[in-house]
């Protein structure tokens, strides 16, 4: 390992700040910690409010859900709640991100629905999704499409403005555990239980390429900022606690270019904005850094 940061609490989702100087980590003790990447020291800690659940960290946005179902968006610079959607999330199970002030959520236990709220908290649409829980969700970089993968091995892409179903993708054999769009929005990477990375053309929603070689299931994906590389992080079929691999792929050729070790199921993998560094969290108190360039 090139370097690591020790945290006071177990870390799940990671995100770099836009300038790459800070690494934000969503911690399982109900706090967001931000580390100085150069020095490895803590720069800021944001403690959620009492009763907040469902924290979601997408690159620049942190959202939590209060006990009454209202949603809070936090300003990562000031550490304060910047916006509240009153009682907007009631009956919702999971928040999966926001774009231009709109928020997308999933609801339901076995029969999943996806719900979109506008910036005032007004419902824009509710659409039926698959069965058995949501494995992963993603929003396209231009905000025009949202995609959800459910545990019944189906995926659906919708128009994010009106909920129109763009494509039901039912050709995959297994559930997908992570979905990530390439930074230019051209590709959607999907991976999960069968150890294969599927690269979809995000215009036609057809499979363009498949990357095989991960030795276990895949729990986390990330494109580098320049779109040239893709990282996939493993998840052992036998137990989350088994050591796994993080693979770095060349997106064009589909070749494996680097392989790193992770101590257990990869919770999150992210590239620095200059695409030189990958940071990996595994739900433990250690964040690993790897040089991926060269």
């Amino acid at each position: 390992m090139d370097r690591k940061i020790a945290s006071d609490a177990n870390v799940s989702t990671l995100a770099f700040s836009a300038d790459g100087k800070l690494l934000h980590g969503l911690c399982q003790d109900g706090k967001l910690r931000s580390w100085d990447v150069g020095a490895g020291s803590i720069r800021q800690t944001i403690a959620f409010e009492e009763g907040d659940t469902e924290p979601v960290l997408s690159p620049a946005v942190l959202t939590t859900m209060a006990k009454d179902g209202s949603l809070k968006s936090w300003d990562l610079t000031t550490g304060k709640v910047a916006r509240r959607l009153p009682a907007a999330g009631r009956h919702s199970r999971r928040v999966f991100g926001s774009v231009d002030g709109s928020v997308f959520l999933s609801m339901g236990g076995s029969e999943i629905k996806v719900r979109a709220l506008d910036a005032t908290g007004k419902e824009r649409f509710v659409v039926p999704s698959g069965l058995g829980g949501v494995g992963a969700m993603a929003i396209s970089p231009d905000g025009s499409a949202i995609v959800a993968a459910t545990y019944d091995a189906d995926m659906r892409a919708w128009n994010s403005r009106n909920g129109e179903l763009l494509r039901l993708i039912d050709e995959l054999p297994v559930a997908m555990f992570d979905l990530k769009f390439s930074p230019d929005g051209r590709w959607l990477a999907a991976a999960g239980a069968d150890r294969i990375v599927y690269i979809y053309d995000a215009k036609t929603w057809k499979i363009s390429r498949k990357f095989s070689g991960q030795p276990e299931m895949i729990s986390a994906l990330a494109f580098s900022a320049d779109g040239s590389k893709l990282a996939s992080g493993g998840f052992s079929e036998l137990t989350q606690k088994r050591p796994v691999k993080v693979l770095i792929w060349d997106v064009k050729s589909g070749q494996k270019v680097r392989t790193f070790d992770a101590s257990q199921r990869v919770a999150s993998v992210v590239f620095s904005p200059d695409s030189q560094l990958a940071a990996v969290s595994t739900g433990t108190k250690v964040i690993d850094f790897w040089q991926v360039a060269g």
Partner: protein
Amino acid sequence: MKTAKPTRRQLIENCICKGLLVAGASTMSQNELLAFWEQGEAQANKPTSTEVLGPFFRKGAPKNITMRISGEPGFPLRVSGKVSNTRGQKVQGVRIDMWQADHAGLYDVQGYRYRSKLEVESASEYAVETILPGHYDDRPAQHIHYMISAPGHKTLITQAYFATDPFFDGDPGKNFRKRNMVSSVELIRNVNLFEGPGQPRATIQFDICLERI
């Protein structure tokens, strides 16, 4: 764009409101008629409890009544049951996806070992030959996953558990909620052991009751 289907209750209410459903020559009011219908539903059989689908479902399993693989370790198990609906009726066109871990607690995520998709005949009974599933750390009670679909019925996602499982410490009624493992004690089935002329084997009966749409 797909829209959610109305529930049976909504349909009945709608029909009553529109005068499409009337109680013969009786003088029942709309409310009395709805109450009568609800009473009938309340007396119906209880649908099988649901469980989580989990991350290991795989589409396209073979129609295989023998999941057990010759020469592989594992205690032989026969799972059988009847499929009906909450009205006690036999259900036509039932498809049952079953999947489980092997004796070592490992799911086949790239193929179809210990996976089957059954087509249940009009007798509404099913049976498979398999092995007792192994234990694994993340969900340490032995279980078999089910996803059951049939026209006109709600897709049921559930799991069968085993009363003999050491996880329940000999008392499933008391311990089924340990580690939030089992949603309902009814899903834990008694295991019958047979010692025949061949090797010993176990059986469980797992009947399924589907909810009508």
